[in-house]
């Protein structure tokens, strides 16, 4: 199996979808000729044609609306929002329309599509190229929210998302596009080539939505997270020699409550981590559900490890980011409580 980074895996996923189904179309700002500012759609236009992979005007609302209209006619759009920070102009079309077309038409129409978007910080992007706005979408009935954390999953989840028939907000942690990240500021880039999930089949396969994965088994505490922080958590466990069980959620809505509860009920000590600002982030949802589901198993308060309630800063990025050291501290706190 070839080694791919996340960008290559996504590219391969879209290529497979375009090959298999003539109704699939791919579009976004700079996504056509140029292949996207992160190159995720590189080469797809020249291979599949100008009307299947194309550039759009800079209007995210119109991009989402176009997807809705196309889906009503039976197409299967994959739209790119250049940075997750720029999804807000489209949020009315996503929240008020896309997410509800099936419901409000009682199933007569649906808006199956994938909205892909580079997501998260750790790349010195400042406040407008670093956001993790997943919580805005996990609150919306009718949407599925996916955050991938490695090349293998990226491709498999992307294909599964397209096949779900529902609108899927598909966030891609850009910090780890080219290699996993251990959460140590300014650490040299590692490559996906050495990571087991960097091996990606060329052809068709899916990774099931709604299923989390225990990426590291352990007995001392459960760490539940997604995206970039999956790797930071793993690095923290290694670095501090903590026997943590690490759960990569992959799908945020619906999240895999079974896998979570099984682990928490067994271990009773939990860290939930997100990169987004703390208040009303997705970690809060997980904690609210965990305390309901596993109340009597909990031996310590669930530790909520997050970004701060501030815009993502530029120069002090690492003071905002949930680094490896903050993970170690979090794990120790729940273990010692």
């Amino acid at each position, binding site marked *: 199996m070839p080694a791919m980074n996340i960008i290559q895996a996504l590219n391969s996923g879209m290529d497979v979808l375009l090959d298999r189904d003539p109704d699939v179309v791919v579009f976004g700002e700079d996504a056509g000729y140029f292949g996207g500012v992160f190159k995720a759609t590189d080469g797809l236009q020249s291979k599949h044609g100008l009307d299947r992979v194309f550039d759009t005007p800079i209007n995210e609302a119109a991009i989402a609306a176009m997807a809705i209209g196309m889906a009503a006619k039976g197409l299967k759009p994959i739209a790119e929002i250049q940075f997750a920070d720029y999804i807000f102009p489209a949020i009315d079309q996503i929240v008020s329309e896309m997410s509800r077309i099936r419901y409000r038409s*009682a199933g007569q129409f649906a808006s199956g599509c994938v909205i892909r978007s580079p997501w998260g910080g750790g790349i010195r992007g400042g406040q407008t190229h670093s956001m993790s706005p997943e919580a805005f979408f996990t609150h919306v009935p009718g949407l599925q929210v996916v955050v991938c954390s490695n090349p293998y999953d990226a491709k498999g989840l992307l294909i599964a998302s397209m096949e779900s028939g529902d609108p899927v907000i598909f966030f891609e942690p850009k910090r780890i596009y080219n290699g996993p990240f251990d959460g140590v500021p300014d650490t040299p880039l590692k490559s996906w080539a050495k990571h087991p999930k960097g091996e990606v089949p060329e052809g068709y396969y899916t990774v099931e939505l709604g299923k989390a994965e225990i990426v590291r088994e352990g007995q001392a505490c459960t760490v539940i997270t997604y995206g970039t922080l999956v790797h930071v958590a793993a690095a923290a466990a290694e670095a501090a020699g903590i026997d943590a069980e690490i759960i990569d959620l992959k799908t945020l809505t619906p999240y895999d409550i079974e896998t979570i509860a099984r682990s928490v009920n067994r271990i009773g000590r939990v860290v939930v981590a997100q990169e987004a600002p703390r208040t009303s982030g997705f970690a809060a949802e997980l904690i609210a559900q965990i305390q309901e589901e596993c109340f009597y198993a909990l031996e310590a308060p669930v530790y909520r490890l997050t970004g701060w309630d501030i815009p993502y800063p530029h120069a002090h990025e690492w003071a905002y980011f949930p680094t490896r050291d903050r993970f170690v501290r979090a794990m120790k706190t729940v273990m010692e409580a």
Partner: protein
Amino acid sequence: MSNGQSRFRVPAPPYRPGDEPDFSYLELQKAGEASRPDPLIAASQTGELATGLVGVLDRDHRAVGSWNPELSPEVLREGLSHMVLTRIYDERMLKLQRQGKMSFYMKSTGEEAVAVAAAMALKPGDMVFPSYRQQGILFARGRNIVDMMCHCISNSRDNLKGRQLPVHYTWAEGKFFSISGNLGTQFPQAVGYAMACTYKGDDQIAASWIGEGATAEGDFHGALTLASTYRAPVILNVVNNQWAISTTQNIAVGDAPTFASKGLGYGVASLRVDGNDFLAVYAATRWASERARKGGGATLIELFTYRGDAHSTSDDPSRYRPRTEFDRWPLGDPIERLKQHLIGGSAWDEDRHARLEEQMTALVVQSYKEAESHGTLHEGPLTPTETIFEDVYAKPDWRLRRQRQDLGV
């Protein structure tokens, strides 16, 4: 600071309650004056059409000029019949709303031609993305009235399972997209649909309608930008009925010459049309659909009309405009005008009209009886409660399964 005088300009409508409305200041092009160019002319050549007024029926109700679509009496009588039905339906539903049979209603009084003529000029396979004031399309496309009513009273036969406010119809079979409560959102969606038509290589097009007030939304701009960029086969209708709830069209139009002229800046063909003239609306829609189908791209059509009644059952227009405005409206009543045109051509008479009204009233009354037999909002039966958990996703996940259980349904 406050002296009651504006220091930036806030546009006001010509008349407010207490004023005597007089629309003679409106310099409207007369029927027949605008000439009909080839549908594939350059958008830039539609400048005069965008500030003029495409009209066919003159003051004496004769069809004049090059926009005359030369429709047969049968077609015209069909149009008249749909419009009469629309109006009677609206009246009846309003009454029923007042009686508490439904939570809310919105009439289209005075704007029947905008919907009916356009729907008749389109092909049945063309997809429509309407706003909440084009119920006429449904009649023109032959929707079952009982079904429409069952939706409005949210009963057990409501095809939307009681999920939507009344008048927010969906009818996939009739190529009628789900109506949104959010203004303007359907405009760029229609363009996406139209692009998909071209992509699929079929002959179909899309049409959408928004109010003049809603043109201020960003989605209006998104729609026109997409339509222009991808030369999409879509008809983008702006129903300028002069009012957006209490807000005058002056607030939306500002210093712009007309709403239609906004299309020119996008390189989209643009027409302003007498929206109370069935023949003009029909002709303009035909022109635009021909343009779209032949690869000429989108047309923006401003339908110049007047909202004859309240915005909805939630407002009282006498608070913000003179009661007499509709009577003084220089473009008259679309039903009356088409009726007189037919009578003038000896294809209709008062008796037949009276009978048509009777028939339609009977149909509506009868339909309502049948509809009510399937329940009403307050007395039920409704769709089973557990259906509130359906259609959120293709398949419900554990959250919805648990929540349904929690509710005990």
